[in-house]
């Protein structure tokens, strides 16, 4: 029973990951794209944990979700917001 639930969770996470990846490429508003990219990083961190790589998951959660978002928002505030 637990294995089936884990499989369902993994399938859901991977589906959300693909949806987020397509959305980042499609969205025209830069700030929205950055926020969707942050959620992509968060889902990726959970997937790393599911793949038994907890140290990579920590780095992904701190850098991929936190610092990358901050630097991209700082870059947007210096340039134009719309593509």
């Amino acid at each position, binding site marked *: 029973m637990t294995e089936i639930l884990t499989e369902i969770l993994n399938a859901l996470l991977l589906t959300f990951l693909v949806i987020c990846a397509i959305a980042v490429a499609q969205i025209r508003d830069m700030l929205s794209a950055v926020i969707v990219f942050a959620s992509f990083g968060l889902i990726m961190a959970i997937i790393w944990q599911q793949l038994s790589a*907890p*140290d990579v998951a*920590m*780095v992904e959660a*701190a*850098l991929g979700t*936190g*610092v990358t978002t*901050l*630097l991209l928002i*700082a*870059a947007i*505030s*210096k340039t134009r917001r719309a593509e």
Partner: protein
Amino acid sequence: MTLEDQIVRITSRLVVPFIQVYGIYIILHGHLSPGGGFSGGAIFGSSLVLVALSFNLEVGAKQISHDTSSILESGGALGFILTGLVAVVLGGNFLSNQAAGFPMGEAGELFSAGAIFIITTFLGIKVASTIITLFYNIIEEEDKSGASH
């Protein structure tokens, strides 16, 4: 100060100490549990960036200024290299651990694994201050060009 400002400030004031303790825990337990210098340093550095972002640059600079983080960045790299060279002086290869005679301690204890504990600590300082310096470089250039942040 608007209501949104107040929510962000109070939340970050509550959360930042816990993030910092978690970052230090991951750095110091680098040889025992998942994580290590890089992960813990990234978490600790992003907590100080959160302070500078949710308050303003002056409050962030009161925690750790641009010059201090630059010095810590160089100091972390220097400590890493010096730890490697101490092993050479003690008669091993560069960065060798037990062969150079670092005390091993008991496996599973916090103060064990000889040079790895020291190297992880320096690596954590280096990564944390690198992230803070990166943030200050981008934001302060923004102030110079006259744009608001």
